[in-house]
């Protein structure tokens, strides 16, 4: 293994501590503060749409965008990612198990990737 440009240990540790502090603050403070107040109904309603919105955005980010980038010549109807995603959705509908659905999605993904040859 050839080391790429190695970093100074002090810098590494400053970044590690800083990242831990930043992440914990961003994650914990909004949760802790907002759980102590009763949010107004319109805000609650808006927050109710956030999870599905996040999931739609993540689906696009982890399935659609890499597909466009990695294999621009493979048409969407042959795309392993889209097949795997739809497979996972269908299996989840039938089983209601995230584990089984994830494994099924991975299986379909590997199978289609092998069949299409990407």
């Amino acid at each position, binding site marked *: *293994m050839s080391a790429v440009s*190695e970093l100074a240990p002090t810098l590494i540790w400053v970044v590690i501590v800083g*990242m831990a502090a930043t992440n914990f603050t961003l994650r914990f403070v909004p949760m802790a503060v907002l*759980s102590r107040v009763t949010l107004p109904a319109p805000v609650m309603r808006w927050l109710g*749409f956030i999870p599905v*919105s996040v999931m739609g955005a993540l689906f696009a980010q982890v399935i659609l965008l890499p597909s466009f980038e990695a294999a621009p010549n493979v048409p969407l109807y042959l795309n392993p990612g889209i097949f*795997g995603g739809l497979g996972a959705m269908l299996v989840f509908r039938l089983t209601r198990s995230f584990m089984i659905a994830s494994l099924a999605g991975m*299986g379909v993904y590997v199978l289609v990737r092998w069949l299409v040859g990407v």
Partner: protein
Amino acid sequence: MQNDVVHTVHFRRGLKLGLPIFLGYVPVGAAFGILACQYGFSFVAALVCSATALAGAGQFIALTTLVAGGNALTVLVACGVVNLRYVLFGATLSPYLRHVPPRIMAWLGFTLTDETFAINIADLRAGDATCWSMAGVGVIAWTGWVLGTAIGWLSSGWLGDPTRFGVDFAMAAMFSALFVALAENWRQVVCGVLAGALVCGLWLVASLGVALDANWFITIASLAGATVAVFMFRDEGKSPEEIAANDEILVTERAVRLDSRADSSTGGECGE
């Protein structure tokens, strides 16, 4: 005593529920471990970094920014920007967590990621989650990430490409399933599809050469998707209760349920 048993049952259920996250985190954690090793992180530094930051994309961005010659502040700002969505996640979870003890709340905050958020919010909506099951989801996710980092660092590359068995698709498959779990009615479906389309749109604009930072895509698209949905489905002249029934989200009702459990004479699911 009896409460401890109940807590253990819930905690174990959380560990099981989080298994797909574990499956997805090990290979991605390994990829981080390999990269960290190449960039001069000691084994301890790589492990501590993963164990304390628990930030997939954030950690990769920190590495690349560092190697590009960025100083500590640049790295932290870059990492903070990509993790701003956690504020949104925390706000969304907050109504459910009213009676959660502080130390458990701290653990839930510490282990809040895209994946734990998604699993827990789906479980909360289904009415099954307690803070103990959520803590379990956090433990299994954290273990997968740290274990993956260790495996990656120690293998230093001879493992080969960890993605060849399709494990790179574990998270994508889980998000697909979660989309189905969360899209409870057509309003929710429209909202999710809208946010997804927006990410694709932003990507298209960026690929045309417009300077757009891809780290913002998820946050922008989620905020916009939910906002458009709220205005699109206005239900004018209806009471808040009727609107909630039309949305079929029932956030408040479930939140109250979790509260009353905590207040019950048995000490509740999340009591001390």
